[in-house]
């Protein structure tokens, strides 16, 4: 298979999965098989791209002109490959988890659910391999629209309101800011291609460059920067697998991936540093990072707390991207992967707890470690990884991020990272500690450990948190190819 067929296949496989699921919508078992199978095939396809080596990076495949001279085009570069690999491997894990969760909770409209899941995955793959901003934008919006039915899945008033916030904010930012800034970019540079070193050098004055960069990054609502972060907690009304994959991995990571890609390939690191167009975003991201952590402290609903934690962690990546030093970029790219693995584990655990006990409130989870030891053990591992302590994988990315902040001479930001880490400990660890230290109240019914279809995926991702720590040198070497 040539590289081009590989890329196209990564788009077609989820789409084909969706179509097949649609036609088999009356047979619940068959759609589950199709669902898992398409995830497995996609994983194989994504990893087979690695075998082409580094020679094919930035080799662009144009399909046909979409608008004027701007083609629908795809390419492969290290960052996109990382994102695609993370998303597709975690997708496979999530498919298994989702089937278990949906069956255990007797959710309805499964065919629609799985279909939208597949289409969302196509959106993710398109974003990962997009070779210009227009292609990226198209798949970005496909992702937005296809996840709406997932968020509104429960179809009650709460789900409706949550989904409304979700769609409203994402569309407002993407049409109101992102699209405008893309058009502006097109107007000043007559190119939207992702190019090493950026395409905007010398095209705008410093002041306007600041406006454009701010507009574009804020416009990527999926990155969850304040004040456009409300959609993320709102989307927590969705079933947990959706929260896990889409709101800890695919959607939010699509957001920060776009931020990284635009910083590196549209503006260019050098340009950002020389014009200091990044200054507004840097401080906005730092602010988001701290504020979101503070808000997370006050949340009693476990999923809501994780959601705010995600907002805070996303701000790490945006900050890393906006700092525009090579260390911070590597740190941000790394964090994209490490946070994904960690956060998906946490969500899986939250979902497992809900499935078994129907509990969502942190107060009620006292002593739950005695009843669900595996789940809570996995939770603890993932929490440590998110906090960034060795020997978990999260420590690496945080290391590089702080290194990046220091190397750009911003001591304040390095301190902000540290404060945020402390806050991480404060909002993640008490849950684990309470679960194991306190005994459950005697009035509580005796719960069993979560079903296997939930337990296996979450143990796998927890294991990954640990394993990847040791594989990091290879990963680092790979990421260094990002210019």
């Amino acid at each position, binding site marked *: 298979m040539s590289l081009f067929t590989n890329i196209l296949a990564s788009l077609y496989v989820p789409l084909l999965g969706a179509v097949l699921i649609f036609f088999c919508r009356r047979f619940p078992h068959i759609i589950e098989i199709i669902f898992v199978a398409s995830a497995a095939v996609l994983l194989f396809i994504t990893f087979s791209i690695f075998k082409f080596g580094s020679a094919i990076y930035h080799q662009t495949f144009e399909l046909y002109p979409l608008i004027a001279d701007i083609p629908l085009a795809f390419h492969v570069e290290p960052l996109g490959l990382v994102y695609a690999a993370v998303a597709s491997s975690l997708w496979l894990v999530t498919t298994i988890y989702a089937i278990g969760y949906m069956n255990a909770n007797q959710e309805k409209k499964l065919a629609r659910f799985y279909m939208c899941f597949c289409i969302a995955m196509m959106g993710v793959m398109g974003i990962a391999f997009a070779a210009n901003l227009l292609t990226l934008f198209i798949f970005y919006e496909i992702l937005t629209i296809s996840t709406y*039915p997932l968020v509104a899945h429960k179809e009650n008033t709460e789900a409706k309101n949550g989904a409304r916030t979700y*769609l*409203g904010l994402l569309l407002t930012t993407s049409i109101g800011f992102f699209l405008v800034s893309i058009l502006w970019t097109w107007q000043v540079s007559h190119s939207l291609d992702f190019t090493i070193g950026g395409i905007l050098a010398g095209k705008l004055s410093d002041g306007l460059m600041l406006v454009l960069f701010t507009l574009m990054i804020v416009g990527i609502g999926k990155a969850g920067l304040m004040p456009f972060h409300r959609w993320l907690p709102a989307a927590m009304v969705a079933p947990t697998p959706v929260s896990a994959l889409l709101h800890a991995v695919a959607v939010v990571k699509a957001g920060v991936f776009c931020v990284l890609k635009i910083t590196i390939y549209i503006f260019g690191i050098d340009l950002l540093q020389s014009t200091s167009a990044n200054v507004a975003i840097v401080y906005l991201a730092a602010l988001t990072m701290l504020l979101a952590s503070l808000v997370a402290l006050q949340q009693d609903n476990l999923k809501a707390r994780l959601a705010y934690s995600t907002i805070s962690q996303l701000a790490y990546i945006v900050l890393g991207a906006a700092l525009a030093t090579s260390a911070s970029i590597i740190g941000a790219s790394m964090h994209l992967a490490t946070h994904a693995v960690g956060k998906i584990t946490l969500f899986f655990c939250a979902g497992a707890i809900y499935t078994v006990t129907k509990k969502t409130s942190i107060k009620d989870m006292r002593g739950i470690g005695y009843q669900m030891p595996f789940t809570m053990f996995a939770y603890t591992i993932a929490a440590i990884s998110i906090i960034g302590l060795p020997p978990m994988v999260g420590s690496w990315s945080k290391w590089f991020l702080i290194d990046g902040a220091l190397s750009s001479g911003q001591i304040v930001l390095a301190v902000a990272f540290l404060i945020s880490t402390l806050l991480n400990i404060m909002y993640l660890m008490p849950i684990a500690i309470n679960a194991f230290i306190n005994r459950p109240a005697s009035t509580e019914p005796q719960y069993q450990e979560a079903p296997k279809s939930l337990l296996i995926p979450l143990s796998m991702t927890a294991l990954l948190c640990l394993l990847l720590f040791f594989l990091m040198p290879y990963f680092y070497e790979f990421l260094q190819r990002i210019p």
Partner: protein
Amino acid sequence: MILMHTPALQVIIPLIAAPLCCLLPKSRLAWLFTTLVSFSTFAISVLLVWQVHAVGVIDYEMGNWPAPLGIKYHIDSLSAFILILISAIASITLLGARSIIEQEILHSKHALFYTAFLLCLTGLLGIVATNDAFNVFVFLEISSLSTYALIAMGRNRKALMAAYEYLIMGTIGATFILIGIGLLYMQTGTLNMFDLHDRMPIIGGFNSVHAGFAFFTVGIFLKLALFPLHQWLPNAYTFAPSAVSVFLAATSTKVALYLLYRVFYTIFGFEFSFSTLHLGAVLLPLSIVAIILSSLIAIFQSDIKRLLAYSSLAQIGYMTLGVSLQTQSGLIASMINLFNHAFIKGALFMCLACIAYSIKTTRFNHMAGIAKTQPWVAAAFVVGGIALIGLPPTAGFISKWYIVLAVLETSWWLAIVVVLTSLLAVIYVWRVVEQMYLREPLDNIQYGTPVPMMLIICTWTMILLSVYFGIDNRFPVRMATMAAEMLIP
């Protein structure tokens, strides 16, 4: 032989078919005949597009009388573009509409309905094909008169009032256009558009030409339903029979827009209209007000047909906004939006036709939970709604891209206005989507008659077309670019 006569055949086939149709005894036969005729006009318009691509411009002299004396039909890239749009929409609408027409219209009037439909089609095609100013007026009235009749056939008695209001406004508009033609004729002694244009430098200074320009402006704005002359449109679209709403929403204002291009670019000329007489300064504020106001009003409608009618008004605002920018890119944007919006709005009204067929109403409250009983229709509405909002990968996105890009060339604050108002579309579309999907069906609503397959297939054809032109837009963009380069040299 056919190739030589395509410009004439385009118009006379439906014209001859109309009286034949009214002689046909059976409703089904009349439908079949009308559909066949509209498909043949479509085939001819395809031929015309092909010819225009091959040779550029086609002239056809009626009765072999040479141009300034006789009536000349003139097909260039702009006319071919609009012709293919009208005939395509008419064909798809008619193909799917038989069942809904049988349900909504008295059986004894079917033959007359189809006759009126064909006459309306003739009128619209004629306006676009002819190059004679007075001929335009005649065709305008043919299409308008048959439209009044078609609207009046609506089931609700309000349809009568809607048709009456439209008749008064439409007649005033057409008469204004007639006065404009008269004043120009007075100064030039010719009715041929190119002849008129050629003499414009000589007569451009006369007061009567300026007065004629003003009459044309008001008349066309009336036909176009541009704010503040839009009052007739919402009622007309709302109370017309569903099939008629589809056809009108997709074509009638588009043809008025075509007339605007023709009159102000071809007859008066770009220089005269926009530099000497500042048409842009009139169009720009009106378009912006139309966009903002109509979008806001659309949000609060309790009937979805009405909601879409107001949304049409906003879209017309976008199209005239493109014109008011006075640039080639603005004109291209306007034309692309014209083309795309015709399919999108046609598709959405087609969805409402399905719903009206099923539950006999299009009121917002009764939409609750309709996705459960009519999943295909509801899904079609969602896709059409996404296109209306202008999200990729639909045709609406392409329109929006070109409009914002064209506006950005002129001023950035206007671009922000355009983008923000397009977000209003999210609100009114998603209100309906939520109602369809996330509400329990009302108890007192019957589950409704199942929608015939043909209607759904045609609805989806339009929907898929509006998605297709979002993915592959080479045809409309090329045609619009050719036309704009012709109109603004």
